[in-house]
């Protein structure tokens, strides 16, 4: 019996006009905000705690812990910041959410703002996302007009403002401290974190209490308030620490690529089926479970719970990440895919720290050399050593994420590297003949 796929975020995804305030309200929109505004902030945090919600942006950090770290007063301005910088290769869910359900995001932000006692929210949207940006800004404008935003909202005595902020092309700005730098008008470089610096919830943007949450994390809050934390926590068929539903962007060699809301813990084989399975006539070679930084997974096992715990345990990748599931069939040249990813991280490295800046520059040159027939056997050890010099030593997780696809591909597909080194091409794939 396949797992029943409860739809929370996407319940009204396909209702025509759901991106407009009237339709959204007609489908019980802003009900949860009306409820939240009458609640004690800590009561909301408690619901979120009970729900077991973990960040949907990549790190999977329990949301309530971050929120609880805020000062429990409004002595200074608090900021709720939404991470809509979605740039992790393979991840397309926030874009869809903002395009289709902008009011769900606005409502989610409002509920979160009540919880963390913030009057101001910035939604940091990547520069390429003009369409989602317009969609969200339009929803914000409608919410102001309807009195959900502005001064003394719904007679609560509280003010709420949401601003959109457009990035300008830098993957690194998705890293939460770099995002804060960027929001403050600086180069998108990450900032010191605990134990080197206070938590952002104590001193974040403009040295005031701030938190960064993913679009999907914020958009999940109304569902939690609607169901109640306890009920929400019952959703999920895998690990007790992976609760609720999660949006997955499923791309690559599947029959029905798309964005699906999936109950956490659903077996991987079922997830594959939801996306129509590996494209007809082909078979699974490898996949990246949650955005490129997670690394490559082996084609077996297939029947394991696809969630925060199940993925790292069963695939030796970093994990669920941002939910960008990329499927590769046997035609895939894994060396080439990795090469492309190395170049991507090289291009996106902010340049602050030596390991990432120099390590990726070096890796990118080595991959280029191997690809053009200049590979040497010892390059494999060299690549591994360079990864070792980056691992745990880079300033932020970009460097760490960059080496994960490299190391996993080396572990699983060393023979493809050797094939390039010995024959100047990949004898294990039919790359270049991708009849669709």
């Amino acid at each position: 019996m396949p797992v029943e796929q409860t739809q929370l975020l996407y319940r009204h995804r396909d209702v025509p006009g759901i991106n407009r305030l009237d339709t959204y309200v007609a489908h019980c929109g802003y009900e949860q905000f009306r409820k939240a505004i009458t609640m004690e902030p800590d009561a909301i945090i408690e619901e979120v705690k009970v729900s077991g919600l973990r960040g949907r942006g990549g790190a999977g950090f329990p949301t309530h812990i971050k929120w609880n770290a805020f000062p429990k007063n409004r002595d200074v301005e608090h900021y709720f910041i939404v991470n809509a910088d979605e740039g992790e290769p393979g991840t397309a869910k926030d874009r869809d959410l903002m395009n289709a359900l902008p009011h769900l995001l606005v409502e989610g932000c409002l509920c979160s703002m009540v919880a963390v006692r913030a009057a101001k929210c910035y939604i940091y949207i990547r520069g390429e996302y003009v369409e989602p940006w317009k969609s969200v800004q339009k929803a914000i404008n409608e919410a102001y007009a309807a009195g959900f935003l502005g001064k003394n909202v719904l007679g609560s005595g509280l003010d709420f403002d949401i601003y959109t902020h457009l990035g300008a092309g830098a993957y690194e700005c998705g890293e939460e401290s770099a995002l804060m730098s960027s929001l403050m008008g600086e180069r998108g470089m990450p900032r010191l974190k605990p134990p080197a610096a206070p938590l952002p919830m104590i001193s974040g943007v403009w040295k005031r209490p701030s938190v960064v949450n993913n679009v999907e994390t914020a958009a999940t809050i109304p569902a939690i308030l609607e169901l109640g934390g306890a009920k929400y926590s019952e959703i999920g068929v895998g690990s007790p620490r992976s609760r609720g539903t999660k949006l997955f962007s499923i791309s690559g060699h599947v029959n029905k690529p798309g964005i699906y809301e999936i109950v956490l813990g659903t077996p991987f084989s079922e997830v594959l089926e939801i996306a129509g399975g590996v494209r007809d006539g082909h078979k699974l070679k490898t996949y990246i479970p949650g955005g490129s930084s997670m690394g490559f997974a082996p084609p077996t096992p297939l029947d394991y719970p696809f969630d925060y715990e199940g993925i790292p345990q069963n695939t030796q990748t970093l994990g669920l990440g941002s939910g960008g599931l990329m499927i590769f069939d046997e035609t895939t040249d894994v060396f080439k895919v990795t090469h492309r990813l190395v170049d991507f991280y090289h291009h996106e490295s902010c340049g602050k720290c030596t390991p990432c800046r120099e390590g990726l520059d070096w890796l990118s040159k080595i991959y280029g050399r191997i690809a053009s027939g200049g590979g040497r056997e010892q390059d494999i050890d060299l690549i591994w050593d360079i990864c070792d010099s980056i691992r745990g030593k880079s300033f932020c997780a970009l460097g760490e994420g960059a080496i994960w696809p490299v190391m996993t591909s080396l572990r699983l597909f060393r023979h493809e590297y050797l094939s390039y080194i010995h024959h100047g091409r990949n004898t294990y794939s039919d790359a270049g003949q991708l009849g669709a």
Partner: protein
Amino acid sequence: MVGTPILTRDSWELNIVMSTQNGPDRPKTAAESADVNKVVSETKAAQDAGIPMVNLVVDGKPVSVPKGSLVIEAAFSAGSDIPYFCYHPRLTSVGACRMCLASVELEMFGQRRASIMATCTIPAADGMVVKTTTPDVKKAQNGVLELILANHPLDCPVCDRGGECPLQNMTISYGPPNTRFIEDKRRYVKALPISEHVVLDRERCITCMRCTRFASEIAGDSKLGLINRGAQSEVGPFLGGTFDSNFSGNTIEICPVGALTSRQFRFKGRPWEVKSSDSICTKCSNGCNIAVGHRMGEVVRINGRVNEQINEEWTCDKGKFGNADVNAPERLTAPLIRDAHGVLVETDWDTALSAVITNMQFVSENYGANAIAAFGTTSGTIEDNVLLGKLIHGVFSSSNLAYQLTQGPRRLPKATIVSVESAKHIVIVGMDLAYDQPMYYLRSVKAQRNGATVITVKTPSELAGANLTSESVVLVPDTLSASDYEAIQAISSEAGCDYSVLVSDANGYGPYLAGFDGADARVEDLHKGLSASEKANEVLNGLASGAVKHAFVLASDPVGTYADGQLASKAFSADAFVVVTSQFMNATAANASVVLPIASFAETAGTYLNVDGQLQTVDAVVPPRAGTRPQWQVLLELNARAGNPLPVFNPSDVLPAVLMQGGSE
């Protein structure tokens, strides 16, 4: 590329083990030693001052450091060594280079565990256990260094930093002895001049952001920034612009590689051939402590030297590059005497000195003691002034010791360089603080970073709109008119605050300490303030009217610098016999009867009283330029020739005697 000989993995690892001659006794550059000394002495001071401390263990050794110290600093205090590039004790931490990795065991989120961390970013905490020498740490440091060196050009033979390069030092102590990098290195145009003084070599840059942090945090002008990103990151001034900061020279010193180098010093010698001697900069009144670099008797560069009361470790560009005038071809190298045709011609010292004494004796005998006058110096030492006083007052009994500092109050400023750092409201009147009082400026930047308001008004009248309160610190130049000072006095006393006149010359108060300008002062009198004096004008009038027949001008230029320039130029165009000591030709010297070429600050010894009342004694660093003599030697000789043989002495002995005697006796 395929055939390039390469190392095998085994020899690589073997070499890691071989290249670990490191630890606290490794050779360090002066800057590296200064960093460690600063940290260690601050820890000691904090221990003595009873500041809250944290206790941790570094390499098995318990150490107690002031709260807020970083782990790398605790390691220094414990006598351990951690390699670093981007860390600098006077800059905020960025954690960029990742060189300072060590194993740090601490409690986080309720769990205690050890991991490898960048120790320049982590505050030391009670109960931490730090290890700097484990194999894991070594491997990590080695790996980071290999990456730093990957794209580095390694053109050490022609690099001005070679020999005092932290990157070279860290490599020999902590790095891989060879490289596995066989790819093309990043290429840039080499030696790109980015200002009058600084050249940039982007290939050597390790993007440590020291220079850019210096520009924004210390110099406060953000004239240097990072552009582009990732492997393409480079430092530079605003696109197409130049690095025009009055403090640019410091970036050369703090750059841990040879990416920023001095155009002046370029290829002047290998750093190890350059000897370094302690001195004091005399380009302005601040009295920055400097290390004069000299090679084969020639001054080749000026570096900053630590003095927490004055310049911390910085210099301004005027001091760093301006002192090259020691080598200027325009320097006077032979005494000049006016010949029968009224032209200044070169002569020898004996002739010149005889002419001076002969005239003094003649004037004294025929016109009386007060027909002789002397003008004190603000660029020479206190000793120079004292010795001149001994000659003119002591031997010839003239009371005409003239000197003019300012039209304003004659007292040391209430606002010291250090005190400005903690001011809340700083108002600068009519000067470019960064240029005129560089060290006051740097402290004002610090104050500003701590939340102070700093404003500049052009004229004293605008001061009325500056919202002065009793907390305000008002900084005023020494060049305003008497009525300006009155106006400032009126406005500030109404607000209940004080104002501080900052003198411009290296030894602005020196002549007072030697009895010039009607003063008979000790340093503490200068703090209280001296009463007004008309001595300078009196003497100038005497010169103009012909009553004064002989004027001895000690290393100064009254015509060019005194407030009443008209009177001064009238005075010095009268017929008197004028003697001027100087390094260079100037307006007063041009009309003199005898000009005596003297040694530069680096070639002489003595004591200076800086702008906020700090006495500093220095020794000569290089021999005097051929043909010149230190002023004190010239004055000793003149005293002797006038019948007042003074014991030959070490100039640094003169000072205590002066202060004991209080003046010129």
